[in-house]
């Protein structure tokens, strides 16, 4: 008796979940146009960069009368993103916007997606063969972003001392490009010594410990460039616990709420904000263009905004701060 009741409850829960899904990006238009089904696969759950991207994508989907749902792995790792990709492919959307978590490891499941007739658009990161696999690759010009970070840090530090890069892990196209751009540009300031890059594996705790370790090893450390959200956030935490926030300037990449707070409190001095909403929007636009058979832009580079404490509330900077929810 009780058992049947419980099974019924379980079935009810499943049914509710079914109703609860697919609730994003419902398109309005009652036109004769086909309503396209899109899915966005983020790099990791709960990262404000990807949330902001989702917001932009949803806006564009709504405007185009398409539906967009979202899926993401628990960690930024290919072994966890692969089952998500496989399940999305089974769903047979018309197109997938995806941020591949590894330039190599994600090739097999994404190839399977393409073979199933689904159009792919790579947002933010890409794979080694991105140009063949995807209709379009949309990302910030990350090398330029790295160069911008170098210029900003040179200015902030007065051009003298050692500087460190805290990167994520090798094999991510975007952050590798940022580190490269930084390295190239920082050479133009002879007074600054580039001591190399450390990896945070996208974990704030590791970034924090790398920052404090570098501080101990290089007492003349004056600047850190964190190549992504968690790396910069972690570096700030490390400096805070070492009491070195006045001494060392941080330029971060990405403008999540926590980093904006750090900016306000003077722990981080500048943020190179990408425009993830633009990336998401462009991703949807290119996907729909590809589905309609219209011409597609193979590569789109979105821009940056340098955010500082002084300009963060101004009308041309404020809209570009990352959101925690849409």
């Amino acid at each position: 008796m009780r058992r049947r009741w419980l099974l019924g409850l379980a079935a009810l829960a499943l049914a509710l979940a079914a109703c609860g899904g697919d609730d994003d990006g419902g398109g309005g238009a009652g036109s004769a146009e086909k309503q396209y089904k899109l899915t966005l696969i983020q790099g990791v759950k709960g990262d404000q960069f990807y949330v902001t991207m989702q917001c932009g994508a949803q806006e564009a989907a709504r405007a185009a009368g398409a539906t967009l749902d979202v899926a993401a792995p628990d960690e930024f790792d290919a072994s966890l993103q692969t089952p998500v990709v496989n399940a999305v492919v089974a769903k047979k959307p018309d197109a997938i916007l995806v941020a591949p978590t590894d330039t190599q490891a994600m090739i097999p499941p994404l190839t399977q997606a393409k073979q199933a007739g689904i159009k792919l658009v790579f947002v933010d990161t890409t794979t080694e063969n991105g140009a063949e696999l995807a209709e379009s690759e949309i990302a910030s010009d990350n090398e330029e972003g790295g160069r911008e970070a170098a210029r900003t840090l040179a200015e902030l530090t007065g051009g003298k001392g050692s500087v460190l890069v805290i990167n994520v892990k090798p094999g991510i196209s975007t952050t590798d490009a940022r580190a490269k751009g930084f390295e190239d540009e920082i050479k133009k300031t002879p007074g600054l010594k580039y001591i190399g890059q450390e990896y945070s594996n996208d974990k704030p705790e590791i970034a924090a410990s790398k920052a404090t370790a570098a501080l101990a090893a290089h007492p003349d450390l004056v600047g850190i460039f964190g190549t992504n959200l968690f790396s910069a956030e972690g570096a700030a935490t490390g400096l805070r616990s070492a009491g070195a926030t006045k001494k060392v300037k941080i330029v971060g990449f990405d403008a999540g709420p926590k980093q904006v707070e750090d900016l306000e409190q003077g722990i981080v001095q500048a943020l190179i904000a990408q425009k993830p909403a633009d990336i998401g929007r462009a991703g949807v636009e290119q996907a729909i263009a590809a589905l309609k058979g219209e011409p597609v832009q193979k590569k789109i580079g979105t821009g940056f905004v340098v955010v500082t404490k002084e300009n963060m509330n101004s009308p041309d900077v404020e809209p570009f701060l990352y959101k925690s929810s849409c």
Partner: protein
Amino acid sequence: MSEIREVPPAGTQEEPADRPLQAGVQGALRRRLTETTTWTFLILLGIVAGFAALRFEQFATVFNFRNIAADASGLLIIAVGMTFVIITAGIDLSVGSVLVFSGVIAAKVMLALGGEGWGAIGAGLVAGLVAGLAWGVVNGVLVTKARVPPLIVTLGTLGMALGSALLITGGIDVRGVPLELTTTIGIGQLSGVPYVVIIAAVVTAIGVITLSMTRFGRYTYAIGSNAEAARRAGINVDRHLIKVYALSGLLAGLAGMVSLARFATTTIGGHSTDNLAAIAAVVLGGTSLFGGIGTVLGTVVGVFIPAILQNGFVILGVQPFWQQVAVGAVLIIAVYIDQLKRRAQERGERR
């Protein structure tokens, strides 16, 4: 081996206090029907039927099931080993870390031997398996000789194995694994069945046979049920436990090889919850955390329930965070049903 003695038979008298149990066959059938494995299997079928009803063309395809099986193969391999460990009333929290460590060792060996060709691949795979086996032996020895509880021992080796892997790699995944490994075993198929699924299936079959039909399996159950009784019966409990933990480590190493083959990188960051997922799978399958009871087939069901839930939820478009809530809820419901059934069975047999 001493012979069974013949004692002159006496008349059997039914006494009122000793109510007769149901006749042998009837009892066995009743037990089979009410076994936990049967119930969790029904839950699994229910979930599959539910998703199929909601999204038939998307969910109920060979393509989708093949991917689900391939994605679950690593966890299944680990969970088979975990089944043996938990049946001895032990636990192994180190499996995810051992998986990563084995992958790192294998990748480093392959690269050191030139980074291409089946010779390097073979040597790397063997090195990875040996690494997993070694951690398993460490666990077994600490549990039996140092008499430290398995929870603590394997929590320690969890940290040591992962820490060692991070030390060796500097925290970054090892890349450049020979391509042949990935294209053949990693993503290749044999008549439509992915090689990784075949490997997992073979491991499962060996596990089922060993646990249910051999002396090794019988000793595993006996030690979990009453280790002291096993000792007094002449079973070398310490040696057997070391073998069981070694098996768990070896299988974690094998899962590491499978992961390396599929992803061509060591995926250090992706295995921090493998241990809990394996334990949940084993418990969902009807194995008791207190030892003495459990089956490998139950574990198979337990592996696929969360795997299919995750797959179905993505297809339905459920928000990612709800998936974790749902999987946790199913775990509690399934174990609760098992408890109800067990109590009913006890009442029935004592009646």
